[in-house]
Every structure is written in structure tokens, then in C-alpha cells.
């Protein structure tokens, strides 16, 4: 294959990674931005989404698209409900103290992971894609499903942006993010907003997992990589910044896809780590974050 088509293929693979990463990292970023909670268990909500997608799609017989669509709706709802319960039982009791919640979410990570191991098992299990259409380009054929992941992610990111900037719910979330005490003085039930945002963050991770699981596999340890990459993305983009999260996810995803294909995956990881180090040294608030609040 010539360089041009090779680069296009690498870029497409990178965009698929970016699409999933942007959704996952956005959940992490929203939770930190609004609640000031660094959710170390975020990757486990991703894993739960994938495991539940397998369970739901396996339980529903018929065309694979039926099982997949059911999983796309039900798995994030279940994960959101689990996150809401965790928020009420753990984070609220700690009064959302930043240090205490880091330790608490590490505990949540292990509990969710071990529960998945106990009930789901150690095997990696596949989920059938909803369709297997292949788009034939002049140089190579490419999975239509992978392209649909990019489109679905773009749609969801746009929807999240519209909710945050154009609706009353978004206004309430932003007011809580900027100044929770003043928000309360204007009738905003901050505790309820925190519960909703934590659930929403987990749901975004679960949706990303359901989208990616047909081209990877569901496994109880699969939350670790998305968590690490999400942290890289939100550090580069700026915690709490939607625009920063998307830009950083595209940057990391594309560089990962292209460098992995032309050089090696290890070099891609080294470059991402270097980028994080440079951002931490020269612009600790991230590319689009605010210096202090």
C-alpha cells in the first residue's frame, strides 16, 4: 500500500480510538469539573458497560442489531443507576472531600472489578457487531461499523454540548461547577446535581464501551487502559473543559493510530506520556482549562 492510503487507514483507526476516548474522558472530565471528584473508578464503569453489553446481547436472540441496540440503551442505564447508588452511599457521605473521594473511588474500582470477576468470570467474550457492512474505498475496504462509532460519538458529543450550553439542565450544571455555594443560594439542589452528573459521567463511559465492544472484547480488566488514557486526555485538554477533552482525545487518538501503524505502539505511548509531562510543566491547567477557580 502507498503512503497516502496507509496514512488514511491509520488516521481512520486513530479516529475510532479518539471517538471512544472522547466519550469516556468527557465523563471523567464532567465529574471532576462539576464535583471536583477525581473518579478513579471511571474505567470500571466503562468495563461494566462492556460486560453488560455482552450479557444483554447474549440474552436477546434474533438479529445481532436487536441485542446491540438493547445493550446500547439498557447497559448505560444500569451503569448510571449503579453510579448513582455509589454516589449516594459513598461520595455524599464523604462530603465530596477531594482527597477522601480519591481513596474511596480506588475502593470502588476494586469492588466493581472483583464483582465482575466473580459473576462474569476471567474470560474475554466477544459481542457481535450490529451490522458487518464494509465500505470499499479505492485503496482498501473499511468497516462500516467502525465509521458508525465515529458518527455516534460525534452525535453524542454534540448532544452533550447542546445540553450543557442551551438547556436549563446545562445552566444548572455549569452554575454548580462555577460556584456551588452561590448555586445553592439560587435554589439549585447541589446534591441532586452531583448525583446526576456522577451518573451521567458513568453512562458516557458505558456508552463508549458498548460502542467499542463489538471490535474488541468484554473483559473484567478492560477498564484500566481507558482510565489511563482518559486521565491523559483530561490533563492535556483541561479538566472540566468539553472542548479541551474533544481536542485532546482527537490528538491522542490520531497520534496513537498513526504512530502505532508507522512506527510502534510503544512509541505512541511514549509520545503521549511526553505530551502530558510537557503540559504539566508548561500549562498545568491544560490546553483549554482555566488557571484557577
Amino acid at each position, binding site marked *: 500500500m502507498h503512503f497516502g492510503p496507509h496514512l488514511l487507514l491509520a488516521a481512520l483507526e486513530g479516529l475510532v480510538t479518539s471517538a471512544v476516548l472522547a466519550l469516556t474522558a468527557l465523563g471523567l472530565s464532567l465529574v471532576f469539573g462539576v464535583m471536583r471528584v477525581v473518579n478513579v473508578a471511571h474505567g470500571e464503569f466503562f468495563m461494566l458497560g462492556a460486560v453488560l453489553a455482552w450479557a444483554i446481547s447474549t440474552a436477546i436472540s434474533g438479529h445481532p442489531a436487536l441485542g446491540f441496540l438493547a445493550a446500547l440503551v439498557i447497559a448505560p442505564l444500569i451503569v448510571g443507576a449503579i453510579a448513582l447508588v455509589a454516589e449516594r452511599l459513598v461520595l455524599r457521605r464523604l462530603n465530596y472531600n477531594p482527597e477522601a473521594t480519591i481513596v474511596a473511588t480506588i475502593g470502588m474500582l476494586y469492588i466493581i472489578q472483583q464483582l465482575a470477576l466473580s459473576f462474569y468470570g476471567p474470560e474475554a467474550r466477544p459481542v457481535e457487531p450490529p451490522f458487518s457492512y464494509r465500505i470499499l474505498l479505492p485503496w482498501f475496504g473499511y468497516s462500516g461499523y467502525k465509521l458508525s462509532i465515529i458518527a455516534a460519538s460525534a452525535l453524542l458529543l454534540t448532544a452533550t454540548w447542546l445540553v450543557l450550553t442551551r438547556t*436549563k439542565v446545562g*445552566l*444548572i450544571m*455549569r*452554575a454548580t461547577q*462555577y*460556584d456551588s*455555594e*452561590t*448555586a*445553592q*443560594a*439560587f*435554589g*439549585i*439542589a*447541589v446534591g441532586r446535581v452531583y448525583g446526576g452528573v456522577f451518573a451521567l459521567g458513568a453512562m458516557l463511559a458505558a456508552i463508549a464501551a458498548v460502542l467499542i465492544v463489538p471490535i474488541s472484547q468484554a473483559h473484567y480488566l478492560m477498564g484500566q487502559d481507558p482510565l489511563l488514557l482518559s486521565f491523559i486526555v483530561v490533563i492535556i485538554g483541561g479538566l472540566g473543559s468539553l472542548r479541551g477533552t474533544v481536542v485532546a482525545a482527537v490528538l491522542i487518538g490520531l497520534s496513537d493510530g498513526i504512530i502505532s501503524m508507522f512506527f510502534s505502539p510503544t512509541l505512541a505511548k511514549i509520545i503521549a506520556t511526553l505530551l502530558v509531562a510537557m503540559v504539566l510543566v508548561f500549562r498545568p491547567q491544560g490546553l483549554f482549562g*482555566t488557571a484557577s477557580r
Partner: protein
Amino acid sequence: MIETNKAEASKTEALRIAGLDCFHGAVQVLYRLDLVLNKGEVLCLFGRNGAGKTTTLKAIMGLVPASAGSIKLTGKELTGLPAHEVPKAGVAYVPQGRRLFAEMTVAENIEIGLMARGKGRAVRDNVLDLFPLLRQRLRQRSGTLSGGEQQMLAMARALCLEPEVLLLDEPTEGLMPSMIAKIRETVSKLRAMDVSTILVEQRVDAVLSVADRVCFIENGRNRETVDVEELRADPSAVRRYVGVG
């Protein structure tokens, strides 16, 4: 505590605080604080820094929990209500330093105020009539407004609740004289509209020009409440409690 307002008994109470104790962590800030705000009056809380004036306002808003005592808004108990229910009951707060949602536009800040008690476009228009300058700045990010404009927006946001009681914490702090005059004018207009106001103020001239009564807070206690006419005639209380005047 000495309540010297002779006509007080005949007036309708908007807010009554009785025996209020508040703590910041392990430190007690308010000690058995008593205070009465009558309907349509401007009551000024006056005292040195750290006397407990801001804590009193925050306690009314439920932002600092009361460990003892009661706060009643026209007879309805506010203590024990979640903080977000207090504005819905009819108390609006303009915090010290404005505390606008600086990343949001002027229109969005006003929208937050309207949402608290479900007020609509008519209230928004009335509030913008009070502060016509804001009408021209609706799409501007509030953090980019001048200090005076930010104070106007902070008051406008609070007035969108159509509150029975308005709490103003040092609204003239750091403003130029023309803006201070505008704020005073607005407070006087609100009195005419029967809004009861508790004003925390450090400037003696501002207190004397807009307040009906002045409550001297010292070390978390209400030492004395006097009519402003009495204070004008004998300003010794100002010297006694604040050391100026």
C-alpha cells in the same frame, strides 16, 4: 441586646432571628444573636471585620448551619431547611464580592435568578428596567463587566427572585462614587417597593443615607440596635463599636 425602635411593635416582622449560635468548624462565630427585620425597612449590620455580619447572612441563607436558635421568615421557620429551599421561601442573597457565575453571560446569570422561584419574562423585564445598562450587555460574559456593572448584575440576579427579604453583603465595596450612588438609589427604590433589606456595610455615610435602623454586631453578638435618626444625632455608637466616625 437593646432594641430601641419604638414603633417596632406596631410593624409587621419580615424576619426574626432569635438566640442564633453558629460555628465555623470548632470556632463559635455567633452567640445567641437576636435580630428583627421589619417589612419594608433597611436594617444595616455594622461592625468590625470578623464580627459575624457575613456569617449572619449566610446563616439566614442556610449556607452556615445554625447550631441553636431560630430564623423565621414571616413566621415560617428557615433553620433546618436545605440551603436551596431558602431562596424559594423568598430570601435573596447578594454575596460579598458579587460571586457572579463569571464564565456565564449576563443573560444566563439573570436566568439562574429567575429559575429559583420560577419567575418569567415579566419579572426579567422589571429587573432590567431597574438596571437598564444590563440590557445592553446581555450577551457579554459577566466576568468581563466592570466592578460596578457586576454589582448591578449581582443585585439584578437576586431581584429576579422577587424576594420578600434581600440580603446585601457590602454592595459598595471597591466601587467608584457614581456606582455607590446608584446602589444606594436602588436600595431606596426597593424599600419603596416594600422589599425588606439587611445590608452589611462598612461605610458610615452609606449607612446613614440608606438605613432605617442600624444593628451593631460585635464578637458575634448584637450589642445594640438604633434608629438611624438617633445615630445621626449621636454617632458615638459608631465610634464605640467600630472606632471611626
